[in-house]
């Protein structure tokens, strides 16, 4: 019983923490964020498994975590507001060539990150080639170049 309770508690806690931390925390793969994810996974494992290293406990935890994922995906489909709360929505950061600095500050995204996304995804060289930049739900920045389809 305890394994299931621990699994559910840790799953919900991580869900809340990563929503509060913000989209960019999940999407970036700098060294800093990689170290953070490694440490979190190690801490999470200890909190869930405790002293019980049996195959049964491991299987129960995996079933609990997968079950939580399935349950949440069903609930998100039934309740669009829950989907919005858990996954968020895309946010325009550059609108028709204009940088929306307030929004960028709120999301902790700066101009260089937008330009990096523009170079990596569209091969664009400068800000004036960007028509729209959108911070997607998964934390990636998508770029729509000017005059593009």
């Amino acid at each position: 019983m305890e394994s299931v309770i621990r699994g559910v508690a840790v799953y919900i806690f991580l869900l809340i923490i990563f929503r509060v931390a913000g989209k960019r925390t999940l999407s970036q793969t700098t060294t800093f964020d990689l170290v953070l994810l490694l440490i979190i996974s190690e801490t999470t494992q200890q909190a869930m498994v405790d002293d019980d290293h049996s195959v049964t406990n491991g299987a129960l935890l995996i079933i609990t975590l997968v079950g939580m994922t399935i349950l949440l995906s069903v609930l998100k489909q039934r309740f669009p507001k829950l989907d919005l709360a858990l996954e968020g929505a895309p946010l325009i950061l550059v609108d028709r060539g204009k940088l929306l600095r307030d929004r960028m500050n709120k999301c902790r995204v700066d101009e260089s990150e937008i330009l990096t996304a523009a170079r990596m995804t569209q091969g664009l060289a400068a800000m004036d080639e960007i028509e729209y930049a959108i911070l997607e739900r998964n934390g990636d920045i998508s770029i729509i170049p000017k005059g593009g389809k």
Partner: protein
Amino acid sequence: MTSPHCKVCMEQGLGGPEMEKHGRLEIDENFDHHVRAWRVKRVGWAVMLLLMAGALAGFLGPGPYSRTTARGPGGLHLEYERISRYNAPTHLHLRVPGGKEDLELSVPAEFIKQIDLERIDPEPKEMRLSGDKHTWIFPRQESSSEVMINYRPHGFGKKKIRLEVKDAGALEIQQFFMP
């Protein structure tokens, strides 16, 4: 400018988020949601900061607030942690005045069931279980005697512990174990 749903969804009778038009961009931005989410995030960060401060101060486990002492009749002195955590190491450090007879320390059997006893210093020369009490007997020093009980609690919540020392009195303390 908003359109109820995307054209394709409307044609196929599907539901979905409301699409907004920004120039030629069609997107389900929902800016009100973002404003609410930023507010919630700020509250979340404040809560995280409070939890960290609370932990440092000892409100969520070992720390300055958690460490405390209890004094009892007959010169009993106990150092312990009033807040600990499930399966985390904690201790009871008891000091009693010296004497000639052996030191007999009793705790409720219920308390022993709720913990994993790791170590007792010094090692008791005898252990007795009678009724609802668990008694350890230690050789006593002439000046003063000290006993350190190291253990890890099972379960969580408020627990009361009564320590009785023969011919010296009793001490009742309360501990809270975080999950």
